[in-house]
């Protein structure tokens, strides 16, 4: 069901009229799935909007939204838009000192938060703001647990706000309807902050028109609509969640499902059986790791069966999904495998009813991608960034190429600059960075092209292949092209490796720092009866170093056989003594490694890698989520990796 309303609040009203009793949102609460119909959502949005209006929230004001994926918070997004205001979702795991920057930058006076944890943080932010104008006036919380005795000024519960809204609506008949009617497609519909891979976060202003166009493109490509279910579990501040859980939701009119807590997502997904799913590569990676661990613990016959059928799937599964020709015998065997292995496996992953699944946010390892497609999950990639509503390229059904992110999405024009950078023009390109004309001018050129900062190539069929960040791509002393992300992604496909950082630009060889996956390697150690006393100890075990060494050797063998990549084999590596963490600024909030920062912070280690040492002592400060700090120290071994002679491509 599609409507042509020009703004999100009007899309909501259209659904409330066309399918008032269909489920719009579900949330698991106290063990039971609660449902809001489109009618109920429209009613509640109206109440919140009126409540905000009664507190003085007006057109072009910004409303910060901080919390996990709760129906009430999604409704707050539309409520702010209803008043021609702008919702500003913020990452809920950001610490106060980070968050205060965005609150200040967006002149936030109104905040809707999830619970006590966030209230405490916002109160802390308010103290940090002293003296500067304007500061937070109202904090509205969804979950009252633990907040009964708070008496700070400006605190209010979600239910109190609704009550205010009902009263306001009675007293000001027509205020809400007039506000919704006055909204225009060219109004800014949301401000999303970039994760800040480079420098301070910037607020990306996107109009209703952009996000509606992006939503419509996706909905039409995959024929989404009422009856489809999607799981909303990724941060609301991420552009992907806004595209899927707000834009596509309101354009397509399907059902949004919110998990009980971040830890129950797997279970909740099995119960809902979503037909539409999206996640960054690391989510798919995490799922696969969990399955691999359990498979290793399974009985021998099961392991044999699994290995047998997975080999078959690797060979023909992707072709079957793409509709290519496959022999009848293989098809029969695949059917049997579907009954015995793939079906149950999809069920465990909560993907039994998946019609289409998407991944984006970072390049996905080809092996990982192939795994999901081979077991019959229609996993596809899309490509885009906050500045383009995450909507630039989409893989169309039947035309999925492993190495590419697909062709330009409807309404989008692509161009590759001379230096390899991908340029984008079209419906989804940002209006501007909030209050940053200088930064806007840097990325938007006179012809309306947005400069993505990614290096890519277009193939003969118009499929875009992203190699790396344009600024990350470097060269070794020998002149060979060094694409760190490309190598790191190969490494991260191993379940034992959680994170990897490669160095090599301007050096004579490539070295790597590795983060083990504590769960996977811990399990591996337990099965070998290898005793360890925590992360630091496990990461330093010679057996673990050997295990990581094997993974690296396999990657090197791979690189040696690839055209132009042979010289960037990893020469030496070390295993880090602590997990890279966004709280320590080593990863962005979307968990991309900040290579430059890491190289600086661990300069001693990088020095040791290239300095021919065999081990290096290091002390590192760590920040806990509550803001306290501690120190971990260890002596790390530098290990030589096995490299392979470069295979010359057959002429």
């Amino acid at each position: 069901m599609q409507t042509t309303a020009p703004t999100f609040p009007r899309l909501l009203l259209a659904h409330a009229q066309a399918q008032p009793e269909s489920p719009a949102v579900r949330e698991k609460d106290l063990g039971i799935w609660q449902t809001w119909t489109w009618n109920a959502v429209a009613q509640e949005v109206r109440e919140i909007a009126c409540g905000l209006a009664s507190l003085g929230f007006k057109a072009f004001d910004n409303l910060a939204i901080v919390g996990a994926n709760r129906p009430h918070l999604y409704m707050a997004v539309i409520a702010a838009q209803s008043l021609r205001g702008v919702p500003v979702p913020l990452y809920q795991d950001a610490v106060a000192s980070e968050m205060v920057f965005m609150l200040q930058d967006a002149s936030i006076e109104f905040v809707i938060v999830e619970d006590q944890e966030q209230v405490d943080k916002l109160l802390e932010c308010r103290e940090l703001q002293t003296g500067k104008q304007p500061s937070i006036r109202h904090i509205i919380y969804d979950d009252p647990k633990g907040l009964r005795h708070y008496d700070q000024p400006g605190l209010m519960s979600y239910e109190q706000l609704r009550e205010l809204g009902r009263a306001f609506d009675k007293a000001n008949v027509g205020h809400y309807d007039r506000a919704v009617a006055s909204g225009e497609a060219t109004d800014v519909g949301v401000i999303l902050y970039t994760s800040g891979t480079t420098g301070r976060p910037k607020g990306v202003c996107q109009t209703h028109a952009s996000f509606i166009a992006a939503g419509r493109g996706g909905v039409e490509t995959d024929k989404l609509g009422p009856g489809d279910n999607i799981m909303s579990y990724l941060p609301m501040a991420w552009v992907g969640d806004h595209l899927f859980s707000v834009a596509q939701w309101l354009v397509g009119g399907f059902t949004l499902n919110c998990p009980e807590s971040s830890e129950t997502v797997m279970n909740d997904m099995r119960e809902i059986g979503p037909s539409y799913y999206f996640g960054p590569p690391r989510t798919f990676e995490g799922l696969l790791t969990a399955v691999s661990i359990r498979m290793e613990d399974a009985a021998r016959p099961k392991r044999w069966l699994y290995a047998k059928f997975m080999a078959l799937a690797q060979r023909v599964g992707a072709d079957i999904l793409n509709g290519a020709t496959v022999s009848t015998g293989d098809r029969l065997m695949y059917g049997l495998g579907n009954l015995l292995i793939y079906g149950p496996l999809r069920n465990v992953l909560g993907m039994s009813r998946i019609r289409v699944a998407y991944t984006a946010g970072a390049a996905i390892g080809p092996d990982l991608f192939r795994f999901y497609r081979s077991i019959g999950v229609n996993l596809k990639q899309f490509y885009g960034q906050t500045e383009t509503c995450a909507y630039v390229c989409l893989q169309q059904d039947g035309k999925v190429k492993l190495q590419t992110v697909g062709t330009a999405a409807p309404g989008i024009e692509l161009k590759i600059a001379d230096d390899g950078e991908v340029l984008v023009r079209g419906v989804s390109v940002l209006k501007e960075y909030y209050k940053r004309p200088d930064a806007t001018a840097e990325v938007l050129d006179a012809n309306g092209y947005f400069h993505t900062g990614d290096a890519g190539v277009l193939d003969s069929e118009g499929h875009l292949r992203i190699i790396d960040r344009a600024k990350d791509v470097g060269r070794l002393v020998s002149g060979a092209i060094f694409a760190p992300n490309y190598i790191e992604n190969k490494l991260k496909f191993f379940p034992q490796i959680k994170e990897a950082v490669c160095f090599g630009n301007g050096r004579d060889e490539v070295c790597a720092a590795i983060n083990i996956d504590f769960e996977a390697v811990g399990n591996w150690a337990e099965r070998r009866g290898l005793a360890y006393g925590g992360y630091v100890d496990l990461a330093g075990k010679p057996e673990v170093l050997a295990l990581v060494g094997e993974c690296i050797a396999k990657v090197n063998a791979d690189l040696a056989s690839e055209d132009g990549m042979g010289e960037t084999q990893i020469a030496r590596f070390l295993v880090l003594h602590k997990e890279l963490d966004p709280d320590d600024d080593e990863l962005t909030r979307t968990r991309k490694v900040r290579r430059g920062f890491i190289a600086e912070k661990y300069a001693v280690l990088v020095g040791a890698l290239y300095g021919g040492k065999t081990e290096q002592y290091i002390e590192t400060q760590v920040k806990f989520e509550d803001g306290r700090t501690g120190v971990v120290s260890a002596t790390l071994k530098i290990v030589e990796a096995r490299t392979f002679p470069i295979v010359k491509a057959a002429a």
Partner: protein
Amino acid sequence: MSNRKIGDVVLDVQNISLSFGGVKALTDISFDVREHEVRAIIGPNGAGKSSMLNCINGVYWPQQGSITFRGHTFKHMNSRQVAEMGVARTFQNLALFKGMSVLDNIMTGRNLRMKSNLFQQAIRWGAAEREETRHREFVERIIDFLEIQAHRKTPVGQLPYGLQKRVDLGRALAMEPQVLLLDEPMAGMNVEEKQDMSRFILDVNDEFGSTIVLIEHDMGVVMDISDRVVVLDYGKKIGDGTPDEVRSNDNVIRAYLGVEH
């Protein structure tokens, strides 16, 4: 941050003495517990902390002294009677049903509050079913409160120790106790688990309005979360007061840090 109202005395322990044969476990101990407060009993190993709790709990019967709970004085009362009066406890060494799920374990805490008899519960019909639904709802609130939704259906034996402790607390909470006795709730936990537990104890005190008596030998934790502290050593009371008072008490310092000879 919170402004809980600390009320009148709910539990008054007077001149308790307990001995096992010739071994004196407790000698002439008196203290009181006020409504809504967090009251800690601390002391070195073997000081008599658990014995004290067992006296309140009706497991041990002290030879001398009396315990007054909300105006009712008793000398001999068995554990069930104490539980019916609204006193719940958790155990130092966990006493959970390892093979049962988290949900079922906490459900057992509702047992005293169920009106239907065994037969009705077994066929689960009519009033018994409605009753179970009501109790289940309360249990779900506890699960939500203790943030263990992800483990609802997991057998308790498979959970890490820190989470088992949380389930133990959940089961005690399911009784809707007026007084909650916690026997070393943080024993054997790492720093992070201790922090979580401290937060839950304060939240329980705040949200459920329960009065809390806890035993602990980790001084740091106790001082942070208690309103008043009793210090025992070799079965005798050597200190009683606010954490600050206790911290500067010479006898306490001597018992914990030793004394120069």
